[in-house]
């Protein structure tokens, strides 16, 4: 019954990362003041890969941070399952930095709202840019990505699954029709 389509394969995944890294360098005219912050869990791994790519292009170290947005979620108390709180590790001062905030899928925009609030509580970055691998639409907040791997128009019933080698068997993105699929983490 369930229809599951691979919309990005391993090669496409790598290409998207390479392209996004180049776009950042081009737009920010280098990487001098740049730092990236990934939202747990897959945004974090994306951030590490993109940072590595930028380091390769620009030959300079790029600070990478990991952000857990649990404490800033607006649905923290509505849920029956208490979300697992994890650590935020941003071991550099974000004040004055150009931050690229990275997540795997952009959907309602609520996660990004929470992440922005969390970052604001940690300092005053010069600017924050948003990078997502997939933008699937259906925004509930006025949030727009600056860098997008792939725009995927979806229906509310559909599910996007991003797999990454660090956690899963492969790098891939699936679109499924079933609403029984596990929701985006």
């Amino acid at each position, binding site marked *: 019954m369930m229809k599951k389509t691979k919309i990005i394969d391993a090669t496409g995944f790598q290409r998207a990362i390479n392209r996004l890294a180049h776009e950042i360098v081009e737009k920010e005219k280098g990487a001098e003041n740049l730092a990236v912050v990934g939202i747990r869990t897959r945004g974090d791994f994306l951030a590490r890969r993109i940072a590595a790519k930028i380091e390769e292009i620009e030959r300079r170290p790029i600070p990478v941070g990991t952000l857990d947005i649990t*404490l*800033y979620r607006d649905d*923290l108390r509505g849920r029956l399952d208490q979300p*697992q709180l*994890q*650590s935020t590790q941003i071991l550099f001062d974000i004040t004055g930095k150009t931050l690229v905030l990275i997540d795997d899928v952009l959907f309602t925009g609520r996660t990004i709202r929470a992440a922005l609030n969390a970052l604001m*509580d940690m300092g005053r970055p010069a600017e924050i840019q948003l990078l997502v691998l997939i933008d699937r639409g259906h925004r509930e907040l006025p949030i727009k990505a600056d860098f997008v791997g792939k725009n995927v128009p979806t229906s509310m019933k559909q599910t996007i699954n991003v797999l990454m080698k660090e956690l899963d068997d492969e790098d891939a993105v699936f679109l499924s029709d079933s609403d029984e699929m596990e929701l985006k983490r």
Partner: protein
Amino acid sequence: MKLQNRHLLGLDGMSKEDISAILDTAVLFKEVLERPIKKVPPLQGKTIVNLFFESSTRTRISFELAERRLSADVVTFSTAGSSVSKGETLKDTARNIEAMKIDMVVIRHPAPGASHFLSRVVDANVINAGDGGHEHPTQGLLDMFTLRDKYGRLENLKVCIVGDITHSRVARSNIYGLTTMGAEVSVCGPATLIPRDIEKLGVKVFHRLEDVVQDVDVINVLRIQLERQESGLFPSLREYHRYFGVTKEKVSKASKPITIMHPGPINRDVELSADLADSEHSVILQQVTNGVAVRMAVLYLLGTSN
């Protein structure tokens, strides 16, 4: 991750998993406390009332900080020294809490079981901040957190609690928590201040500090109350200090360094010598810092679960 009980009344009977969950969560809050802005929003819109029927500056401040850093609205109500009879006050207060739709209650009360009583009569989550000689679970948790932080484990850690065990809620919460987590716990104090049948809680009993220091990683020193001397439980503070006071001299006989803990406030040079309290082996100030993180963890886990 969700704790089994919607109240934190004590560590007696709390599972290893729940204790670990609180300690693990506290690690994350300790990181928050190191940020320039030490405030996060998970309890925004929640109202917490701190009911202190017994004076306690540091526990109250620690809870208030933890609550505010989680963005809760906080009211503190202190009735120590009030002339109203205790029973009436607690029951009336409970009813007022119901009426004011408060989400969480932190209670410190001189009667053992006061928080249990409160948890039966209000809908709010109840956190025991010390009930007479019964329990002080957040103190037990912060002591365990501090030890785990230092040693990386609690299993097989040898901890001796020294002092007035009979009247100590800190001792009980430490005994329940530490034995659950696999530590080896002993108690040491004058026979008049060791309660009956305490061995059945799985602890060894000593009456001479000399016998303790040879084989222990940690000494948790309890505050000795002058009232106990007045009620005839020990002859004098001088004698207490001489035989049960933890001093550099007594501790130096150990083959390895012993970590010194104290729940505060310290009677310097009575139960603990000043030089030892301020020494490199003392973790007393870390206990205070960790207290805020541990209380944030407890408040967060109870306050955000449905």
